[in-house]
């Protein structure tokens, strides 16, 4: 298929109207085509506005209380402390092997991070303030997360005082159905979940995550887990990085 033919699928892809085979093929193409990724992004916004085409319909008053009642029974997903896992030694070895390409990754990540932060600011002032404050906090540490010698990669900013981690992920295809990615902090040899995430069809993500109180760590790692995340890693991490003060 020529690039032009791929481009013609972008609108239907954003509408969710491709068949499973077409979608799989298109997503493979998306991983390597910035033009199509931009088209999907634009048509995704058009699709998002279609919600306004639904005829007005008033919900019953009791629906609000039902939602709040159900919410009070179940807390939001948050970071949890988890027991030690044996794959740590492997993670530590990978971290030691880091270094090549560090400067390049760092520069690229910083550039992409800045533009992503701008996009975030357009939507919500509060999210921007929190994110920027984390990036600018005096104690911010950074980590370049990488696998063995090729994409994907990730850049992580960690502010102990604000207990926030800001993560920018690159070239990571979205997790398959029923799976998710999970970010771990390795604290005194124990993996602690910082949260689960998934990437956009363009393989990217910028996200802020809350770090549990009194948690200090030097190593972070990313694994692929069943949807909803795991209390402890079930796989070897495919991205690891050591936090360094800037």
């Amino acid at each position: 298929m020529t690039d032009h033919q791929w481009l013609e699928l972008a609108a239907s892809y954003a509408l969710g109207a491709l068949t499973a085979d077409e979608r799989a093929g298109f997503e493979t193409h998306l991983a390597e085509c910035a033009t199509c990724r931009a088209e999907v992004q634009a048509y995704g916004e058009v699709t998002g506005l279609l919600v306004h085409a639904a005829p007005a319909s008033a919900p019953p008053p009791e629906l609000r209380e039902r939602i709040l009642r159900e919410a009070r029974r179940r807390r939001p997903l948050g970071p949890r402390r988890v027991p030690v896992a044996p794959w740590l030694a492997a993670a530590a070895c990978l971290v030691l092997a880091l270094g090549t390409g560090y400067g390049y990754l760092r520069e690229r990540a910083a550039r992409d991070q800045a533009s992503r932060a701008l996009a975030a600011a357009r939507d919500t002032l509060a999210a921007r303030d929190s994110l920027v404050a984390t990036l600018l906090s005096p104690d911010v540490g950074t980590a370049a997360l990488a696998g063995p010698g090729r994409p994907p990669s990730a850049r992580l900013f960690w502010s102990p005082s604000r207990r926030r981690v800001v993560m920018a992920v690159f070239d990571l295809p979205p997790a398959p159905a029923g799976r998710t990615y999970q970010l771990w902090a390795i604290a005194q040899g124990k993996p602690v979940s910082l949260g689960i995430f998934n990437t956009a069809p363009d393989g990217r993500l910028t996200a802020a995550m809350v770090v549990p109180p009194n948690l200090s760590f030097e190593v972070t790692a990313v694994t692929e887990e069943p949807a909803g995340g795991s209390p402890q890693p079930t796989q070897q991490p495919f991205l690891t990085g050591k936090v360094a003060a800037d």
Partner: protein
Amino acid sequence: MQKTISRVNFEAVLANQQGQSRWPDGALVARISAGDDRALGELYDRHGGMAYALAVAIVAERADAEEVVADAFGQAWRTALQFDPGRGSVAAWLATITRTRALDLLRARGRRARALERAAQAGTNGLAAPLAEMAVAPDRGAEQQEAKRLVRHCLAELPEPQRRVIELAYFGGLTHTEIAAELQEPLGTIKTRMRAGMEKLRGLLAPLLSGEGS
């Protein structure tokens, strides 16, 4: 029907998307991720009407729509930490969750979407309701009313066959192959209509889209 969309109206919508008047949506989501159920209530007050209208448009039955919206806000509550402002607005995030839940429920019950019933009625104005209906819309804030009005105006600008395939995909969750079967038209025709319709809609809605507004 007024066909000209004034610049001022677009700006009102954009101002709301930037959250200038109240707690920004993003701040509500941050409070929700910290377990603040009052913030969830505020989020519902702001977007519950939109979610419910979307759910009704897809599943038709009101009891099903309530279940969909309850599930959707439950998911938003549990996964607020994963919301990424870089990937779109809070409203778009909630709409995506609601639409996915609604289409899942339809498929689970082997039912047809309301969009299909509407499509079967030839010569209708598509899913977009008459503008008079908007007075009873439950969403708070004139901005959401304005967004509704703008999007409907833009949809009304499309040739009816183009609008229909877009509505079948969005509200019916159908692939273009399924739409071709439903409408008994060649697949190539459906693909062309969908692409042309979305392209035109993108142009009409450009002032509301990031990076394309002037």
